[in-house]
Structures are given as C-alpha cells and as structure tokens.
C-alpha cells in the first residue's frame, strides 16, 4: 500500500505544478480547469470501477450540473450557490436513476446507464424552448463569493476553485475507499453473495457510491459550465461518457490521484494533438489508450507508483 505521505506529496507537487504551469502559460488555465473538473467526475467512475462496474452514461451527471448552472446563473449568479445546487441536482438524479440501475451488473449496468444518458441527451436536444437545443445556452460569469471579477481574475479564480474541490473530493474518495463502505464495493466485484450473508445489502452499497459519483459528476459539470460558459447537449452525449471512462483507464483506478493524472494527460494530448494533427488526433488518443491497456494496465498512477517502488497498482489504496 502506498504510504499516505507519499501520496500526499505527489498531490501537493501536482497542485503546485498546475499553478506554476498556469502562471507560465496563461492559456493553460482553461485547459487545466476543465481537466480538474473532468477529474472530479472521473473520481465517481473510479468508485464504480471498484465494484467492477463500468458506466457508459456518466456524462449525464456532468451535463446535469452544467445545465443547472446555465439555468440558474441569470437569477442566482454566484458560484458558491451554483456549485452546491448543481451537486444536489445531479445527486438527486443519481438517486432516482441509481435505484433502478443498481439492480444490474456488468454489461447490463453499463448499457442501462448509456441508454438513460441518451434519453436525457435527446431531451436536452429536443426541448428547444427550455434548452435552446443544439445551440446551447450561454452562461454569464457568476460572482465568486460576492465579487464580480474581471475576466482574467475570473479564470484564475475558477482554476483555484477547481483545484481546491479536486483536492477535497480526492481526500474524500480516498477515505471512502478505505472505509467499510468502500471495501464492500470491492466485495461486490469479488463475492457479492458473502456481502448478503453478512447482513449487508450489496445494492445499497452500490447505490451509495452511485449517488456520490453522480454528485461529483455534477460538481465537475458545474465547473465546466462556469468555465466554458457555453452549455450544449453534447456534454451528455455518449462520446462524452466514453471520454470519462477513457480518462479513468488512462489515469488508473488504483488511487484517487489517478483520475486527475488521467484528465490532465488527456486534455494535454487532446489540445496538442488537435493543434498539430487536426485530422488524426482521435487516432492518437486511441493509440495512447491501446498502449496503456497493453503495457500499463495500472494507468499513469500505476506507472508513477511503480517507479516509486512502493505502490501496488490495482490494490485498494
């Protein structure tokens, strides 16, 4: 098991690295904020992966958070209000959907989540009077703690906010995974019957994780909405869900740092590849994923903890 100190040091180094990079290359602030937001959403996917379940519909929670921001920003333009409300909306949606999907496992779980997310996608697209369809909704920058900031300061503030939330949720997920609720999740993967014979409802264990994962999706989505300031149904499209799973695998599911390594790596590859090889960037991402699956199944986190010689990728952190 990776020592707590080592993981904390890497997280601190990473956070400092993010700030230094944003200072040195101002255009990176946007990319890094989006990466951190997606990392928070991917933390949720990591929880479900612990139970051996992969969802191909998680972007719906990110979209729910982003649309909450888009709908409420005109009347309640305050980031510290929008964030918790977005988390609540996504968490509630996760509870409603979760009550249904936690009855299923494996391919059925994955596909049901996909199907439900596609239903929401078409609603967002079709209910034009409410959502403006594929045109999407523009979001005015909200106040942050009561301050209306100039754009440059606003971008900084969003990055710092995303960073603080990423650290907070990272610490939370780390504790969750070490708790009986998190360890029981891993028990769903290996021996669900035993859980039942210990008096524990496996469905409830999975539901709790599912709601938390939806809530984190909502937080990620709210940051995305406030950062891109343009919210479209594409956020809920299945390719967006696939992207989140991609990030989870790229970063590695072994530790709470994985999603953030994956998200930053993904966004950087995407931005550089798209700029240098406009036609081929998806092929490049595909090749990267293939290499990770074949040669580093523990993802970027697995590689780092392997290099440090202390970690055991794939084991509960």
């Amino acid at each position: 098991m990776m020592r707590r100190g080592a993981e904390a040091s890497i997280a601190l180094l990473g956070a400092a690295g993010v700030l230094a990079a944003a200072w040195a290359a101002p255009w990176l602030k946007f990319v890094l904020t989006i990466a951190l937001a997606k990392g928070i959403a991917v933390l949720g996917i990591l929880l479900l992966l612990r139970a051996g379940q992969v969802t191909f519909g998680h972007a719906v929670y990110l979209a729910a958070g982003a649309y909450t921001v888009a709908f409420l920003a005109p009347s309640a333009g305050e980031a510290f209000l929008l964030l918790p409300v977005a988390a609540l909306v996504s968490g509630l949606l996760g509870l409603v959907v979760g009550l249904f999907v936690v009855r299923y496992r494996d391919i059925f779980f994955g596909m049901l989540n996909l199907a439900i997310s596609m239903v929401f996608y078409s609603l967002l697209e079709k209910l034009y009077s409410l959502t403006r369809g594929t045109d999407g909704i523009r979001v005015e920058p909200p106040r942050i703690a009561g301050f209306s900031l100039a754009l440059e300061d606003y971008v900084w503030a969003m990055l710092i906010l995303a960073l603080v939330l990423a650290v907070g949720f990272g610490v939370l997920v780390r504790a969750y995974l070490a708790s009986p609720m998190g360890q029981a999740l891993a028990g769903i993967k290996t021996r669900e019957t035993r859980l039942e014979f210990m008096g524990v409802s496996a469905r409830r264990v999975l539901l709790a994780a599912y709601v938390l994962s939806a809530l984190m999706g909502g937080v990620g989505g709210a940051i995305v909405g406030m950062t891109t300031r343009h919210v479209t149904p594409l956020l809920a499209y299945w390719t967006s869900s696939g992207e989140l799973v991609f990030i989870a695998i790229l970063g590695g599911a072994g530790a709470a740092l994985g999603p953030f390594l994956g998200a930053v790596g993904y966004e950087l590859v995407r931005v550089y590849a798209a700029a240098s090889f406009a036609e081929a960037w998806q092929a490049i991402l595909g090749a990267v994923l293939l290499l990770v699956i074949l040669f580093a199944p523990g993802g970027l986190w697995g590689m780092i903890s392997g290099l440090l010689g202390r970690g055991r990728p794939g084991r509960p952190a």
Partner: protein
Amino acid sequence: MSGALLEARGLRLAFGGVRAADGIDLDVLRGEFLAIIGPNGAGKTTFLNMTTGYLRPQAGTIAYEGESILGLAPRAIVRRGIGRSFQLPQLFTEHTVLENAALAVAAREGIWSPLTPLLRRRWREEAMEILARFGLAALAATRADALNEGARKLADIAMAVALNPRLLLMDEPTSGVAAAEKMAIVETLVRVLRESGVTAVFVEHDMEVVERFADRVAVWSQGRIVALGPPGQVLADPAVQREVIGIERHA
C-alpha cells in the same frame, strides 16, 4: 420458551424431477451441536440454503425463535442471528484475510460510515482476535485467493463467527482441511462456539468428528431425514451404516 431454536416443518423443494427436500421436519435445539450426514446429493446443502433464505421452499414453514423467517432475504435472516459458512468458501478474494474478517466485524456494527477506516483499531483488533482463535493470525496479511483449501474454509467460518450468530450453519467445515490438523481445528472451533453459547448445525462427512462432537445426528437421504438421535445410537443402526456410512466411506 421452547427448547427449539429453529423449527422446520414439511419443507419441500424439487429441482425439475430431483426432490432435494421431500418433507423435512426438524427441530434444532437451543445450545446443541447437530450434525447432518448423508450421501452426496441427499439435500443437505439445500436445507441450509432454505434456512438462510438463499432458496425458497415450495412448501413448508421455517421458524426461528418462534417467528417465521420464510421469504426473508438472506441478509435479513443473518441480522436475526443465523450465520452461515459455505461448502465452497465465499471470501473476498482480492482482500487480505484480515480485511475479510474486519469487514465481517464492521458489517455486524453497520458499515454505513464512509469516513471510518476499515482497519481502524477497534475493528482490526477484534478481527485479529477472531483470526487468532482460528489459528489464522499468521495469515492475516495474505490475500484470500492465495490461501490453501483448509485455511480458506477456516477463514470462511471465522467470518461467520465474527457476526456473533446465535445459530451457526456450517456446510462441511472440515472438508479440505488436512487430516493431521483436522481434530485440533474442530476442537478449537467447538470450544469457540461453546464458549459463546452458539447453537451449531454442521454438515459433516467424517464420522469420527460426528461421533466426538455432535450431540445429535440427522441422517439425510434423498431429501428426507431417515434417522435422528444421539450419534452412538444413530451410527450403530445397521440401516444407516449400510445406506449412508458405507456410501460415505467411499464418497
């Protein structure tokens, strides 16, 4: 209060044409050690599966502490105090032996505390203490999928015991345990259970174990109980010897 902790009446369950339970009537008495013997396919495991809510009988009733438990989910039955260990051990294979035991201890207290570490001192110490009672302390850090058959069996029982059941159903607790260690292990197990006042039902193929540790023996054959009584009497019955023990020896 009657002497029976568990009362099964007229249990029937058929799988296609196979009558795995064909009218089972059985009282498990408070505090006793009841052995179930019988040839392969006689329906011994099926009885445990019905009692623990894993299978639902097509007819009959099961009462525990005077209350029907028919139709309850396994986890509801477990919470009432009926524990179970398995013919094929059911361990969390990617967890260590200690984590397995600690999860059982935590499950007893309710696992719904997302920020308390599983290996917090209280749970870890109790888990270690239970493992020690089963002679598993040295294997605490071993992953469950790396254990040999005998240790897996014991860990499986330890997890059931960690839940503090009042009635413990064990499916072939000694199969797979090396013959040299068997008696010592059963002795330990029996002592642990007697100390904590647990009533036990165990399916067993080793007649020596039955003779030494069972208060009563129930003989299963083709979904029915064909003999029931103290081991000295039942095992001496020529019919039982011919039909069951003879087969057992060759099983």
